[in-house]
């Protein structure tokens, strides 16, 4: 493999993490992002499950992309995805019942996570298996990071702990709101605000440099 193509592959991988982060940049997959991030544990479980489904289905879609007729491709993708979601559903139930209970129907809802179908349609159906998996892993990691960002803030402020370990000592007054739905909206909104502020600042810097 030549230097440039491996570079490009790296780019594919990094895209999902930063430049095209599915949550913060593309604003996709909002429902699980908001619903299961009131603790870091749930966030990680959700992130990993989604990543698993994303990678597996991207791989399979890329494999069968030349076989499937155009008219039924979406239906096929959905079937592929829901199969993997069923697998994950049973896997989690086998591994940890508390996590399964906490995530509830949101595991099943991975099926309709727009990130997965979106990547299948936009990337995996047009690229090689290798690149599709790279892309899926990148997106998956990006999604996990976003969930962690949210889950971290919400658990830290909402219960004063991280992964269940108290951080701020026994006298800390938790901000219960961050465990509530409204807190989820606020946290995600605040993250998006931070990102757009950063972007704005970068743009202003660039403009200044250009004029200077």
């Amino acid at each position: 493999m030549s230097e440039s193509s491996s570079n490009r592959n790296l780019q594919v991988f990094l895209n999902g993490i930063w430049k095209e982060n599915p949550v913060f940049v593309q604003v996709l997959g909002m429902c699980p992002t908001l619903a299961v991030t009131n603790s870091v544990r749930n966030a990680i479980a959700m992130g990993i499950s989604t990543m698993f489904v994303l990678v597996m289905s991207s791989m399979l879609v890329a494999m069968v992309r030349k076989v499937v007729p155009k008219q039924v491709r979406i239906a096929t993708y959905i079937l592929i995805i829901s199969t993997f979601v069923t697998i994950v559903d049973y896997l989690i139930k086998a591994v940890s019942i508390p996590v399964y209970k906490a995530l509830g129907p949101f595991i099943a809802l991975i099926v309709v996570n727009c990130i997965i179908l979106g990547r299948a349609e936009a990337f995996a159906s047009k690229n090689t298996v290798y690149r599709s998996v790279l892309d899926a892993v990148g997106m998956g990691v990006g999604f996990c990071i976003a969930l962690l960002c949210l889950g971290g803030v919400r658990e830290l402020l909402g219960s004063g702990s991280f992964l269940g370990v108290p951080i701020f000592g026994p006298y800390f007054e938790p901000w219960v709101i961050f465990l509530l739905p409204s807190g989820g909206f606020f946290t995600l909104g605040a993250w998006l605000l931070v990102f757009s502020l950063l972007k704005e600042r970068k743009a202003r810097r660039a403009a200044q440099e250009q004029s200077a």
Partner: protein
Amino acid sequence: MNSASLWFIFIDSLLINNLVLAVFLGICPFLGVSGKLDTAIRMGGAVVFVMLVSSALAYGMNVLLVRLDAEYLRIISYIVVIASTVQLVEMFIKKKSPALFRALGIYLPLITTNCAVLGVAMFQTIRDYSFVQSMVFSLGSGLGFTLALVIMSGIREQLNLSDVPNAAKGTALALMVAGILSMAFMGFAGLGSN
């Protein structure tokens, strides 16, 4: 069998555990289609309709799966049911009422990826609702989705004329408004329980 009263299920799904503002289902269309009041109402109508039909079908499907002892097929079968419901509904409306079809337009196919529809089907299964309960639940959920969507679109239309700071424009602000709405809906907690 769940024994919650129909009235409670309705209030709960409409206001207290509002699909969008408390359960986080259907956030994508909530953020995407809430720019204009007109479209919001149409989208809401389409969702209510599809939700009722698909949740009835999902109920039947679940009964069948339980009898066949094939519950592992639940996710796959539900998504197939929903996708085909949307297709059928679209065809049906197109044929029977072109006016309604024009009104709902592109929103019908969008509903396939609306996690609220699948979510409602999953919830009614997990909570073990009877058929009537399921119907009331899906009606309340659909109306709750519409309510949130319509309120949101009203506010966003107004915000279009405001001097919102650049950084906050778009999704960030919409999420903040949703958060405030979600706080306001918390006032309904406990309603209908006594």
